């Protein structure tokens, strides 16, 4: 279930820093629950739109790996953890609030 995308940074990106920064994202979901499916779709859309080809997304089904839930302090799902760049951030929910997702990822859109 792991998706691995690595693409060079686009010139017209909206990143505050011009340098190429790889977004390492982990999305924890639970099977095929409506929330999970929505979260995956929403997140993919956001990523494709704002950090296209500059992210690494790992989707983990917690049902399959229950141990990870404790290790990652998972309570609410779906959960997106941004490992880098910058400090680790946690985002929960189905990623339907794009502005919040971008804020959480540290991407500032012009909107």
């Amino acid at each position, binding site marked *: 279930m792991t998706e691995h995308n690595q693409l060079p940074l686009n010139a017209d990106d909206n990143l505050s820093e011009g340098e190429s920064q790889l977004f390492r994202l982990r999305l924890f979901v639970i099977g095929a*629950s409506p*929330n999970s499916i929505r979260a995956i779709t929403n997140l993919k859309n956001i990523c494709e739109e704002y950090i296209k080809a500059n992210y690494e997304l790992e989707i983990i089904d917690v049902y399959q790996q*229950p*141990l990870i839930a404790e290790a990652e302090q998972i309570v609410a799902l779906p*959960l997106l953890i941004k490992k880098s760049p910058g400090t680790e951030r946690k*985002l929960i929910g*189905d990623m*339907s609030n794009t502005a919040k997702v971008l804020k959480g990822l540290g991407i500032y859109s012009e909107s």
Partner: protein
Amino acid sequence: MTKFHKKQQLTTFDQLPKTPTGITGLDEITGGGLPKGRPTLICGEAGCGKTLMSLEFVIRGATEFNEPGVFMAFEEKADELAANVASLGFDLFKLQENKKLRLDHVHIDRSEIEETGEYDLEGLFIRLGYAIDSIGAKRVVLDTLENLFSGLSNQVILRAELKRLFNFLKNKGVTAIITGEKGEGASLTRQGLEEYVSDCVILLDHRVINQISTRRLRVVKYRGSQHGTNEYPFLIDEEGISVLPVTSLKLEKEVSSKRISSGIPSLDSMFGGKGFFQGSSILVSGTAGTGKTSIAASFANEVCSNKKKCLYFAFEESPKQILRNMKSINIDLQQHVDSGLLEFHASRPTLYGLEMHLVAIYKIIKRFKPSTVILDPITNLITVGSVSEVKSMLIRLIDFLQDEQVTVMFTALSLNTVVNEQTDEGVSSLVDAWLLVRDIESNGERNRGLYIMKSRGMSHSNQVREFTITDNGLNLVDVYLGPEGVLTGSAREAQKLKEKTGVALRDFAVSRKDKEILRKRMMLESKIASLQAEFESAEEELNKMYLEDELKQEIIEKNRQEITNIRRGNVDAPKSKAKTKK
């Protein structure tokens, strides 16, 4: 009525299964423990012992009932928890290693989390489910679930998920404890958790009254089971939590007709020569300085001399002080302390609340298993509670002691101002035997008089005895009952002396009177003699007169004859012839 009764009995047979908590006293109140396979809510203010109680539930389950448990902490980290209970003698890490316990710290920080839409708490469920399955847990604690509300903002989701969580726990078949912080006003928890947990709710409370804090526990609700509804005090000490189910409503105690000596032979003789009943309660009341402690110490000494255990709760003096003071009246308690038969527990009454005292006493008695307990004095307890509170505490204490067949002696200070001889604590009606030591003041000195006000179930002396404290111990002396009333002390001695002189004086008086009588008799006798003599002389006189008269008559007659003879002329004629001629 009988039908109803039968029905009730039937339902009690079919009680809902329970999980014993292993917490002292809590199982008694709840009639066996928490509802098995259902969640229980423990709520209360901060610092009232919620976490400890729930943690103890899990630990006791793991160690005593072989029921592994999961402790999910929303507040404290695993090592913090372990450190907290290490002082109670529990090793959480070892239990974790042995797969008896699983600690899981759930960390939620609002600042770290961005909510981006719909979510659920499935992650928590998975964690919990995995933890339960990995060790086969039967017990689960969620401490404090309400932290979720501070970490996550979507109340609608949270409430729906909580409902799901409780269903999840029920489906898992685990006995769960959920703790919750007490809310504002009448609500039990801040987030209204009581709405979700409907089977059993326990409320903990931490109250400060008169600067003394007492923790209390109340079972607010227990669906499908009988339970104690009162507020019960509980204690957190080095052995964990103990709740005291202090009121046994039944009066169905075993009684003993064995008698035990009071340590004062003359006092025993007032109780028909045998002393108190074993397992009875004895009250010694009196004004200050009447020797109550001495009586108590003498009783303790006697008990220990018979190789029985005695517990001495001192609320006024320190043990060393008592030991020293009692030595002065030839009661050596030190030897019993050394041999382990006598144990002192001295504490200021204000150390903690009344209920805490009771719990502490209860615990010590359970551990030491004495045959006799002495509380000296109970009066001081009044400083930490009202009269009715002290009374109810003592009722429960006596109840408990009688259940355990422990003889108890209370001492109580009664004030001179109290008109009747009731003790302040009003326990005199509860006790089996009541000794009253009273000052008897007269002739500028104070003496002690001892009465037996009552003694259930045995004949006892109705007399007042003088109670003396000597270098050789305690003794009772018969008071002197003279015509002037009861005399004690030197007045008694004086009266005795007075009596002695009285006897001597009387003896003397008697002999004097005897002599007087003798003298009087002699006097009378002499008087009689003189009267007799007088009478004789009078008689003589009279006799003399008679004779004289006779002689006179004779002479007169003779003279007349002669005159007659002369007249006739025949002077020569013989007298006889003349007579015949005529």
